[in-house]
């Protein structure tokens, strides 16, 4: 099975202290460390496991810039067979629809039986998978937490639904699935693995190779525009404790006890 996984490089929320910049229109990006968007990592692991079982190959692709090559290499070190960087000046400022348009053009250049995305980007809106499926006229399932390959170009998938319940579906290939974390246990990739794929060439595709007209993507084509970034002010009933750890613990105990939570 030929599988494409669309991945993305995001600021690592566990290793950064995210702050707004002084202009208030973005986060402070100096000294941030980036990593693979976590759900995407699960999607790649799932693709690798499917291929290990029934054969085929895994391609990882990302829309971004030179810096994003880092996550392609990391996923290639995990075992992805090919990495493709989709980069062009014209792409900058694209909204979700713009990114889906770019990916659609890329998908149509190849032959993929299955396209996976992470359930959402940590700095995104869980929109690409659905839009891409619609543009390609492929079936789509979101929040997928297990995949079983059936005979006759079909998959049996389960989806996480409200309350921890699961729903089982059959879906025709080719299709697009957005993968929920917890579907598997992604393998570890160390520096050594990344170093071993350091010299594998990664092709870069731009508007010309993909045959996209520049006015359908990028900032000018974006119909969703970011107007502000802000930290919501604490509402009524919210209290933020500013003491030392010990003081905060005492305070929390006191508060919980005051509300009758501790007896």
């Amino acid at each position, binding site marked *: 099975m030929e599988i494409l996984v669309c991945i993305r490089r995001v600021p690592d929320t*566990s290793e*950064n202290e995210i702050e707004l910049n002084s202009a208030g229109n973005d986060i402070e990006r100096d000294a941030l*460390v980036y990593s693979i968007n976590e759900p995407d990592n699960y999607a790649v692991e799932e693709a690798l496991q499917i291929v290990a079982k029934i054969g085929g190959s895994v391609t990882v692709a990302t829309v971004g810039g030179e810096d994003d090559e880092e996550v392609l290499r990391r996923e290639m070190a*995990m075992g992805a067979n090919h990495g493709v960087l989709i980069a062009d000046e014209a792409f900058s400022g694209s909204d979700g629809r713009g990114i889906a348009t770019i990916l659609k053009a890329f998908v149509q250049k190849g032959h993929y039986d299955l396209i996976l995305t992470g359930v959402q980007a940590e700095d995104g809106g869980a929109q690409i998978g659905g839009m891409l499926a619609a543009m390609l006229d492929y079936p789509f399932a979101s929040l997928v937490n297990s995949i079983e390959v059936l005979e006759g170009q079909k998959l049996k998938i389960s989806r996480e639904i409200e309350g921890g319940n699961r729903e089982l579906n059959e879906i025709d290939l080719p299709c697009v699935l957005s993968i929920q974390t917890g579907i598997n246990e992604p393998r570890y*990739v160390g*520096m*050594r693995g990344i170093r071993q794929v350091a010299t594998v060439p990664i092709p870069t595709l731009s508007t010309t190779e993909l045959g996209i007209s520049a006015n359908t993507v990028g900032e000018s084509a974006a119909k969703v525009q970011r107007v502000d970034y802000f930290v919501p002010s604490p509402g009524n009933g919210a209290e933020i404790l500013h003491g030392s750890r010990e003081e905060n613990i005492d305070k929390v105990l006191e508060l919980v006890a005051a509300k009758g939570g501790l007896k």
Partner: protein
Amino acid sequence: MQLAAQLASFLVPGRALFFLIHLIGIACFSYIVAQRLVPLMRGERDFRFDQPWVRLGRVLKYWLGQWKQPRYRAAGTLHIFIFAGFLVLAIRAFSVLIVGVSPNFVPPGLSGRAGDVYGVITDYAATIVFLCMLIAVIRRLVFKPARYAVPAKYGKGHTADAIFLLSLIALLMLADSFFTAAKAAAQVRQGQPVEVLAALSLPWMIRNALVSTSLPTLGRMYFGAYFVHELTFYFLLCYRPFGIQFHVETSLFNIYFAKLDREILKPVRWGISDTQLDQVKSFGIKTFEDFTWKHMLDFYSCADCGRCSDQCPANAVGRPLSPRFITIKARDYSFAHYPVFGREKKGTALIGSIYSQDEIWSCTTCGACEQECPLLVEYIDKIVDLRRGMIDEGNVPQSLQKPLKALESRGNPYGKMEKKKADWASATEFQQTCRVKTLDHPNGAETLYFVDSITSFDDRMQSIGRATAKILSHVGENFGILGAAERDSGHEVRRFGEETLFMALRDHNVEAIKTSGVRRIVTADPHAYNALKHDYKDVPPVEHISQVIAREVESGKISFHPVENKNDVYTYHDPCYLGRHNQIYDEPRDVLDAIPGLKRVEMSRCRDRSFCCGGGGLMLFYEPKEEQRMGVKRVRMAAEAGASVIVTTCPFCMVNIEDAIKVAGMEGKMTVIDLTELVDRQVIRECPNAIEERAGEIKECVMASSHILK
């Protein structure tokens, strides 16, 4: 002489038979040993041929001197007797074998008086070994020491095999004694000058029982005893390589080739430099043949005594790890895949077949097993090599992936930002008493205080950092820290098998240390200490803070107020990487004993038998399967010793013990304090540097403090 020859002639009819048994026995043994050597030839390289004199010295100490045996009093004493008996009987065994073919053979130098003396010694030796066998069988059957038990998950018990072997040795001793006794009895009957037999020895008793037996019967007995002796001897020789008694043959070699510098971890591959590592296709141990030949020799040499697992903290708290079975399972694997008879079998990956991932991650590398093993079997290198293999395959628990990733991108397992590394030193209150320099240019200070991640970032452990800094400034040390330029020492990164990441951290730190131009390094973290001392190269000499304090107590720069609470009883917990791995046992104790009025007790497991509190570094992130926490067990040991305060010298011990006190519900009854915190609390600050000059003031100081106490 003529009559002696007559006696010897009892054996003559069997000469051809005995000769045949010799040939078959020796041929079988040679064939079996050759087969056993096959996997060793397939194993990885291991450089163990250097420093022959040092190695011989260790053979004298650990093999001939049985150095580690008395650590287990009963079994050890028994073993020393058996071992000594075997050594004494070795010459006799060979001369007896020759007698079968050449009946008048006497070993050179052992005729006449010397022979008599040797004869008496062997009589007793045989008797002692025989008795030891009886005791050993009784221990196995009646007393059943817990450490010999084989938990169901590891297969069947080894008792039957052990007793079978013990009985064979007893039989060998008995046959040998009969052989001697029958000859002596015949001499008595014939009115010959009687061979001297040791009074009350086995041969002596048998001879006394046989004196009225007829000469032809004695002849048959003599022949029979010889026959049984020879058969038993060769059977044992050829049977030992199939089980636990192979150590009789291999122990000498195992100890000769044992690792000389235990602190230094095995490189990924012997003979491959760091820069060549990128060309190495596979890291660590994945299949049996990835073990080095010496590691395989370890498997053969294990005597199944169970001391390693008896001391292993992971085993004690029910983690799925027992060092004994790391060895036994590998030996069984080796015997099954490299059989003496039949074809070699193709192997599979070890993880998932004989070992489980959890088993290999369960080890804290505390070194208790290696400390105990009388045969110097190595474990830590094997565990680390197996982990290197798992890392290489991507088999890493999710709980460890995050901190490893953070170490890669941020240089610490918590994912904290580099610029916050020195925040512990900028607390306002602290800054008023002690200013800590950040060494961002050369020659900023004489001494580097290497803080390491946990002390830099953990709220609680920062107190250890501040206490250390205050002590260093109290003794007038010109010191500084690397601040944002300091990365994690990588100590656990390396021990968790992530060699490439470790090398990156190490190289970064070495560069930063060199740039700072310091002449020496001090740290309060034994893991950092061990890394800087043994894993890093080309860095200035490193000391643990307890060594600095002990020296300055001695020099008089540090003196203490008496302890305030006279009811507190202190005990010192040896961190594995300060104690067992670096033999720093006395300095922290000396410091404690220098504090006036401090009552100190020892836990039953202390010094080189210290019980690991749960492990440091990445082990804090790992979620082991266990019945209880090591720390809880340790805290209970402190309570048993009658202590109410545990003093330690390691921030990871602090985390584990502090948590354990809560888990064990012993808050209020037990506290834990780091040595630096204790010293910082007790040190007399107003007091002068040199006692001689201002002795009067010191006296005043002490008087004043004792007033406070009243």
